[in-house]
């Protein structure tokens, strides 16, 4: 299942930013299509199966769900959480 929300907190005051990924992907979709074309050409030049490359990249993206990284030092916190 695709990740839905990324939570990022890189502040001392405890504010969290929740980034909904699907709307972000929809907004960025024109750029993503162009990037996909460039990557497909790069794959062909490097003799890599572009379908396998896209499939495995998508798997890597979906596998990000559940990633949690939290570093606290005194009052400073860095938090990245993918759900």
């Amino acid at each position: 299942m695709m990740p839905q929300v990324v939570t990022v907190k890189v502040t001392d005051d405890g504010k969290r930013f929740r980034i909904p990924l699907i709307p972000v992907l929809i907004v960025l979709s024109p750029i993503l299509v162009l990037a996909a074309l460039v990557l497909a050409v790069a794959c062909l030049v490097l003799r890599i199966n572009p379908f396998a490359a896209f499939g495995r990249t998508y798997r890597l993206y979906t596998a990000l769900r559940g990633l949690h990284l939290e570093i606290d030092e005194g009052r400073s916190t860095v938090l990245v959480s993918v759900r």
Partner: protein
Amino acid sequence: MNEQRRQILEMLAEGKINADEAERLIAALGRDREAPPPTQPRGKPKYLRVVVDDRSGEVPSKVNVRVPIQLLRAGVRLATLVPPRAIDRANDELERAGIGIDLSKLKPEQIEELIVHLDEMTIDVEDADSTVHVFCE
């Protein structure tokens, strides 16, 4: 007296087996009963957790990392697509950084075996001011 022991004694009484054989069979029954039940296979681990609690400095610090095992698997599968020339360059850079890992030998089948055994792995490092805990869940 259970059914199996009764059957052995009946066979002894009927002369089908001798006393030594009966004794061996009864001893084998006892061993079976004492044997621990087979351990239930735990489900495959889903996450690799690293928890560090450091109170040695002026400011205490904590690290809490949870990496999906699926990410490890997906990363290795993606790495298999990397061209050999790029793998060689990456190996050179790793060796220069003092990390003796040959990426060309990293295969998805091996990572499956590694993941299965990761479930049994727990690393605990504790000293007076800090603790490091690495485990799978």
